[in-house]
């Protein structure tokens, strides 16, 4: 059953990215263009998501999930250099193309060669990260 729910969660997430237009790099770059013509839409996407997730995460007090043995929640609390270095590299890539992992993968649906090139390069980055001993999640 957790296979079906994985697929469904992915579909709903992809629909959310489409409705909010976050699948469109131009919208994301508009948000990051704070000193030009600024498009605040991305902030409203985050607010919309947080309005649902924040109360839920604090109210939901089940022993275990419906289709799995346990909840898996990141336990790291310390602020290390890797967190900052990673966020800087990610921010630079995000600002260059206007794509982050979710919208990049969803946009493959539109059969766009640019999305394919970005996703291949991103997966190469995931693969290379194995060799610089950086994975922490």
């Amino acid at each position: 059953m957790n296979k079906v729910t994985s697929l469904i969660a992915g579909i709903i997430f992809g629909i959310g990215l489409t409705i909010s237009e976050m699948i469109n790099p131009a919208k994301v770059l508009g948000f990051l263009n704070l000193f030009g013509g600024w498009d605040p839409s991305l902030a409203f996407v985050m607010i919309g998501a947080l309005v649902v997730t924040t109360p839920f995460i604090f109210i939901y007090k089940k022993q275990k999930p419906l289709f799995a043995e346990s909840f898996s929640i990141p336990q790291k609390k310390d602020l290390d250099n890797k967190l900052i270095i990673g966020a800087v590299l990610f921010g630079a890539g995000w600002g260059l193309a206007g794509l982050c992992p979710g919208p990049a993968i969803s946009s493959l649906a539109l059969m766009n060669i640019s999305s394919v090139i970005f996703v291949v390069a991103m997966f190469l980055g995931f693969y290379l990260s194995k060799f610089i001993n950086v994975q922490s999640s």
Partner: protein
Amino acid sequence: MIIENFTPLPAFIGGLVIGIAVTLFFALNGRLIGISGIARNFLNSNDKRFDNFLFLIGLILGPIIYQLFSKEAVSINITNSIYLLGIAGLLVGLGTSIGSGCTSGHGICGISRFSLRSIIATITFMIVGILTVFVTNLI
């Protein structure tokens, strides 16, 4: 400050839908949605590989299903520079691996559980993203 192309309502509704996906996956599968983590683990780890694969397929099906129901074509505006796309993709893949998360994992899930790490990461990648766009606009 000049505001352009602002679409608050679809943005907010789309955000609610994203929030529903996150809560469902947490309540049913016990996992928080961090797309960079799901994609990286699909590539690098045997643990829950098929679950991760199906989630990624779902992400791609999302826009297709949306178009079927809304009867409107989704169009995007993206650079066609191979070099820019290659460098950006590589930076996103490496950066989210080193920093353990992206816009979904840190920006939505992390902030909703008030994780200091995620709040710091989100502020960092947003500032760097804004600076990157500022610099590329100058060139």
